[in-house]
């Protein structure tokens, strides 16, 4: 119970970083995964799940009014679920749960933004200086939203994943292959956003060669 509370508080704080406070990017899955792994007692697992979700969310940014998957709470939920579950299937099931929870987190951000519209003083209202408390109130609500999204995800996720993990049919290598296929789509989308293969082929292929050499010799 205390562990879920701790992880939910971490989720709330990381959710704040995504848009409301700072945007230092401690909310990115790579960082959130390591932090959640530390709190759950398994940093390498947190890092693995964080890296996979970071790869998926490479092309998802917190831009203005767009609805985007919430990476921070999704990563904490995924890591907390995988850390509490034994079996090869824990990682793929937790990553899939993280993808679903990221979308749900994105919906709650939209709801909160609608609520903020009622919370902040209107420009022609009688007390414009009330903006300080309205603004801080909105930040507080975002924190509570992050805590609630994380806590509900961990509780439901642990029950659901525990029920099916033993039946997971793929081995460790097959599971990793399946997860990396999803990441490969993001990588392709990102290369397209950089101008496509033809325009970037020299830099991209040079990087591939260096990556292969580095992986072999480092």
């Amino acid at each position, binding site marked *: 119970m205390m562990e879920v509370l701790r992880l939910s508080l971490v989720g709330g704080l990381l959710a704040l970083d995504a*848009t409301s406070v700072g945007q*230092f990017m401690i909310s990115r899955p790579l960082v959130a995964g390591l932090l959640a792994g530390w709190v759950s007692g398994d940093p390498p697992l947190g890092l693995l799940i964080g890296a996979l979700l970071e*790869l998926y969310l490479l092309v998802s940014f917190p831009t203005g009014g767009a609805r985007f998957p919430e990476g921070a709470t999704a990563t904490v939920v995924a890591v907390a679920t995988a850390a509490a579950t034994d079996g090869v299937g824990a990682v793929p099931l937790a990553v899939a749960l993280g993808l679903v929870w990221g979308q749900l987190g994105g919906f709650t951000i939209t709801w909160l*933004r609608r609520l903020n519209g009622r919370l902040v*003083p*209107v420009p022609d209202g009688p007390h*414009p200086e009330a903006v300080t408390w309205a603004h801080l109130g909105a930040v507080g609500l975002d924190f509570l939203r992050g805590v609630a999204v994380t806590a509900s995800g961990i509780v439901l996720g642990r029950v659901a994943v525990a029920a099916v993990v033993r039946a997971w*049919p793929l081995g460790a290598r097959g599971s990793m292959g399946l*997860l990396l296929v999803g990441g490969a789509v993001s990588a392709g989308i990102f290369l397209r956003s950089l101008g496509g293969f033809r325009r970037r082929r020299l830099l991209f292929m040079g990087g591939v060669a260096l*990556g292969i050499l580095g992986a072999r010799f480092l």
Partner: protein
Amino acid sequence: MASLSRRTLASAFARSFMIQGSWNYQTMLGSGFAFAMLPALRRLFAEDPEAMRDSVRRHLEHFNAHPYLSNVALGAALRLEAEGEDGDTVRRFKTAVRGPLGGLGDALVWAAWLPAVSLAGLSLLWLGAPGWVAVLAFLVIYNAGHIGLRAWGFHAGLQEGSAVGQRLSRASLGNLTARVRAVSAALLGLLVGAVLAGRGGLGAAGPSWGVVAILAFLGGLVIGPRLWRPTAVVLVAAVAFLATWGLMT
């Protein structure tokens, strides 16, 4: 700028880190902008509460920009208010800069800087660096650019006021974006190579997964961002199907 102390300016700069705290669909960054301006406005209009209210009202109005580059508008608006410019001038200035600040910031930070540093962190990790090193490198490099951009924007706005557009042009943020995107292509290649050949990567998963991953990569390259959501749905569905299949057999 004699009427605004360093402490007041520091307070406005610190508050700019929370400029998106009450983001909403009516005024977008408007309330956050007013929140960041408030310490300075209280000082500037200490003896005229009604003028302060009017000033807060005009900053509560609709405003949107990239959160980091909104500091350019924040610094310039502080200067305009301190110089006693009339409300319409301040309003016109903010309306004129919000589009460019949004476009430049989205292209430079969200579409170039963040993914480039993210790819650098992931590549380090996949090439075998300790996890904390990869994460720390990501945070330090990203935030050197992030905090530097915020501070530069705030300072430029304060110095130039409504003429800050020329400073933005001279800074050539578009060229900087192009360079970061070129580096990103090399970093993406580095990560792909490391995942293909690294321990625990696609090479270890077997050739069939490698072929599927290459096809998935080509799909993303040809179809683009429209493929992201369907991919997530297919991946979740595949995991759910495999788990259900395992339960039934």
